[in-house]
């Protein structure tokens, strides 16, 4: 049951107070073609937490993230960020797309990609100054990629590419970080480096939301989980919501059993 409190008087409704939630979805439905891939999802992200969005393949995890960012248009429902509309708050949100979603053969250098994170600050024509270059190097250093600044992005390994994407998000100096499968196809060292940076962000009071695949690491990496399989199947702290029962319902049948056995 969602936590919406209502006060209906003469047909006028007072919305619940969502000002504290960096990202809240209410009744969001998204369809590709003839049927909803995400149906009537409510989600309330809490400030200063790390939330994993988990669910089986094709359950609408990435779609949910894209709907939250306005990249796909929902059929119904609304998205608020800190209680306001998305457009007013974009500078506070950083997005790390799926690594596979772009063409890594694009003729550009690592440094340039991170600089793209400063677009809001630089605008169309403002000059790139020393402080911007410093900022870029600082972000690259934070993800351990300072020695690769002048590499062409296509020459990087999968893990290195993912770190560059994270550095670009860091350059945005956002309050909310949305990551789409940040650990897909990366090496163990990168995974550790990324999670360390994300935990630092959380400890600085920022909010992190990541689409996540590997159920065995959920408890180590995240504070909260959001379970989805086309519908919202559960939401809460890892202790409360990451339960056998919930996983069983989310993943269904025997598949769920296998996963539960592994996560113990």
């Amino acid at each position, binding site marked *: 049951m969602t936590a919406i409190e209502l006060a209906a008087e003469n047909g006028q409704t007072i919305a619940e107070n969502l000002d504290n939630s960096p990202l809240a979805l209410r009744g969001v439905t998204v369809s590709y073609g003839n049927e909803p891939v995400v149906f009537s999802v409510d989600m309330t992200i809490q400030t200063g937490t790390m939330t994993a969005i988990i669910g089986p393949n094709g359950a609408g995890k990435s779609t949910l993230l894209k709907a939250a960012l306005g990249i796909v248009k929902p059929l119904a429902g609304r998205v608020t960020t800190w209680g306001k509309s998305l457009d007013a708050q974009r500078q506070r949100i950083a997005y790390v797309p799926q690594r596979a979603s772009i063409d890594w053969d694009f003729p550009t250098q690592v440094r340039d990609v991170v600089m793209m994170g400063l*677009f809001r600050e630089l605008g169309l024509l403002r000059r790139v100054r020393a402080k911007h270059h410093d900022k870029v190097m600082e972000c690259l250093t934070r993800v351990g990629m300072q020695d690769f600044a002048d590499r062409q992005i296509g020459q990087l390994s999968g893990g290195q590419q993912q770190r560059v994407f994270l550095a670009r998000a860091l350059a945005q100096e956002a309050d909310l970080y949305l990551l789409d499968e940040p650990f897909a196809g990366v090496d163990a060292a990168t995974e550790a480096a990324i999670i360390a940076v994300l935990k630092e962000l959380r400890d600085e009071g920022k909010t992190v939301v990541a689409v996540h695949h590997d159920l065995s690491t959920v408890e180590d990496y995240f504070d909260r989980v959001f379970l989805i399989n086309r519908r919202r199947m559960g939401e809460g702290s890892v202790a409360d919501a990451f339960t056998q029962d919930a996983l069983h319902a989310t993943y269904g049948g025997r598949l769920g059993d296998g996963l539960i056995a592994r996560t113990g």
Partner: protein
Amino acid sequence: MGYEFVALSLPPMVIGMLAAMACALPGNFLLLRRQSLIGDAISHVVLPGIVVAFLITGAITTLPMMFGAAGAALVAVVLIEAIRRLGKVEPGAAMGVVFTAMFAAGVLLLEQSDTSGVHLDVEHALYGNLESLIWLDAVGWSSLVDPTALAGLPPELFRMGFALLIVGALTWLFWRPLKLSTFDEGFARSLGLPTTLISLGVVVMAALAAVAAFDAVGSIIVIAMFICPPAAARLMTNRLETQIAWSLIFACASAILGYIFAGYGPLWIGASASVSAAGMIATVSGLILTLAALFAPHRHA
């Protein structure tokens, strides 16, 4: 030699260079956006555009014809987008449907209308008439600093220069969003950039260059310059800024060498007449691409 060159060869050569650069510049973005063939589509629909403009105005005048061509390019782009999105047809096929049908309509209109008295035909739209863009007022190199003589330069030169200026200015002004949204559209949208508008903007820029160029140099150069110089340039470097510089150099080189080969090449091998400059410029750009594909430093991924 001086007089002949300045009056007969210099203007077409410069016009060819301007046209080549104006097309190659947006071509870089089309290449990276996997939309190279949009240039092909646009240059085919120029024909119906000018025919319709001719049917409406009843005369061969530059401005209405350019509006007609631009209108046709816009119609084509919108149709391709609509068919792609509404009909869920893959982009290549959507392009193929639209530009061939519009081209067919153009040919039919041309055959149906009485254009016997005017110089309007398919060949013209394809080859252009680069060779005829001569500078009658020129008396030699000194004419380059003579204001009255300069006023007699072919108007195509100014038109093409203006088009290049606009395309260049737009690229410079919107450089960051262009690069960003071409590289990572999802990220660009998360920043709130109007990616659909940017994508349309690239195509409109290409259409502008194509429309300005077709009349002077014909469709063949337009298609070749959209694709060959940027493609060869991509193989030279892994930096977008450098790629664009190379593409402009290759575009100029194609125009100059192509024009020279077309005009003087046959003389060298003992033939009397010259061959199509437009075709030769396209051929040279293909040779440059071939060399790049064989030897350029970054030819492999």
